[in-house]
């Protein structure tokens, strides 16, 4: 078996256990929509202000929903010591990491597919002209977020206070990504794409840095 088919097996295991419990996806989705509603009430923004505020609102919501899902990602494996079963698999530890990351990306993609249109509906805002760019920045932002998030969730899951620790580790780590993603999204919403290339490049840089580091360091996280 090569690396890809090992990852495939592990990913299928993730999908199966999620399909049986549906605990992560439902929690993330409901949470994302609740945050959207809270922002809608708390900010009560006029139409012309939406362009300025909506990018931030979207990314903060996605961040919190993502952290909620990530909290369960590795903690769930602690039940019945499933993590040891995973570690005993005849695969590289990095295969476990890749499978988990892909699963989390899949979950976030579903959440975004439902939550983002809801934002446009709830804030009564027209779809931006460059929809392709919006999808690109959503992908880049979510990717950086999830590659480092899955790694940190494995780290936090080894501690006693995983649910408290994860946001504290996550948020400072992903703030640069968040800033870049918000800037690009803002550019897309206002229709002014001139200033976003620097931030797009930074997003790609962070994506690359955050994908490289876990590969080197993941083995150390799952030592017994």
């Amino acid at each position, binding site marked *: 078996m090569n690396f890809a088919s090992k990852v495939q097996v592990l990913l299928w295991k993730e999908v199966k256990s999620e399909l049986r419990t549906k605990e992560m996806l439902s929690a993330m989705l409901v949470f994302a929509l609740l945050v959207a509603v809270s922002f809608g009430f708390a900010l009560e923004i006029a139409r012309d202000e939406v362009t300025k505020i909506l990018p931030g609102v979207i990314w903060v919501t996605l961040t919190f929903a993502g952290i909620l899902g990530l909290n369960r990602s590795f903690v769930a494996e602690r039940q019945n010591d499933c993590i040891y079963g995973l570690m005993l698999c005849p695969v590289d530890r990095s295969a476990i990491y890749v499978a988990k990351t892909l699963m989390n990306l899949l979950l976030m993609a579903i959440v975004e597919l439902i939550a983002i249109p809801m934002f446009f509906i709830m804030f009564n805002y027209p779809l931006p002209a460059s929809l392709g760019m919006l999808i690109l920045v959503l992908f880049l932002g979510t990717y950086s977020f999830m590659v*480092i998030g899955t*790694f940190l969730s494995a*780290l936090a899951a*080894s*501690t*006693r*206070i995983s649910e408290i*620790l994860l946001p*504290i*580790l996550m*948020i*400072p*780590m992903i*703030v*640069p990504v968040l*800033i870049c993603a918000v800037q690009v999204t803002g550019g897309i919403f206002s229709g002014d794409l001139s200033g976003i290339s620097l931030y797009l490049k930074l997003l790609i840089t962070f994506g690359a*840095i955050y994908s490289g*580091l876990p590969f080197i*360091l993941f083995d*150390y*996280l799952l*030592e017994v």
Partner: protein
Amino acid sequence: MAKNRENPGLDRLLAWLTFFSLLAALYLALVYAPTEKTMGDVQRIFYFHVASAWIGMFAFLVVFVASIAYLASKDTKWDIYAYTSAEIGVIFTTVVLVTGPIWAYPIWHTWWSWDPRLTTTLIMWFLYLAYGKIRSSLGEEEKRARLAAVFGIISFVDVPIVFMSIRWWKTLHPAPVVGGSQGLALAGGMIPAFFVSLFAFTLLYLFFMRRSVRIERMRAEVRAIKENL
């Protein structure tokens, strides 16, 4: 049981040297250095602000190196170095984050601005607070050292960005005075004040390091004795 390699003579020398160089730095920065033409006396905070920033980043570099060394060797010594250096780095970075706004208010007319340099420094500060939080949330020594080392490595990714941010982006933060585009951009009398402050803060860092490393070693010894009893 680990034997403490104590050297009280060296410690005492280091303590006095730190004390006198800090006095010298205070004199040079507050009295000797000329008053800046446009900013006035408030510019004098610069000597300590920049020195703390450098030492803060240097401390985090030590965390990074010690973390790699720990993962490579699994020697507890490196874990102690990483931990104490992170603690001291947070203190120096706190000094940076406090002195910065004190200078900024009269000059920029605002305490804080979300420009890349300030934001990344703040993020760096949060990252090393999180580093401390990882340590306090784990009991088992080996696991704590290992996970902290992993985080000590990834969090350091941010430090070069902090350091480079004023060189990459146009920001509100003043341009670097050392190694910037104009070389050394300091007036004559300011140079000794700057370098003596930097020297004094480096000594202060070394002094703190030696002290806390000794305390950590004693703690480990006490734990070992407790387990034997």
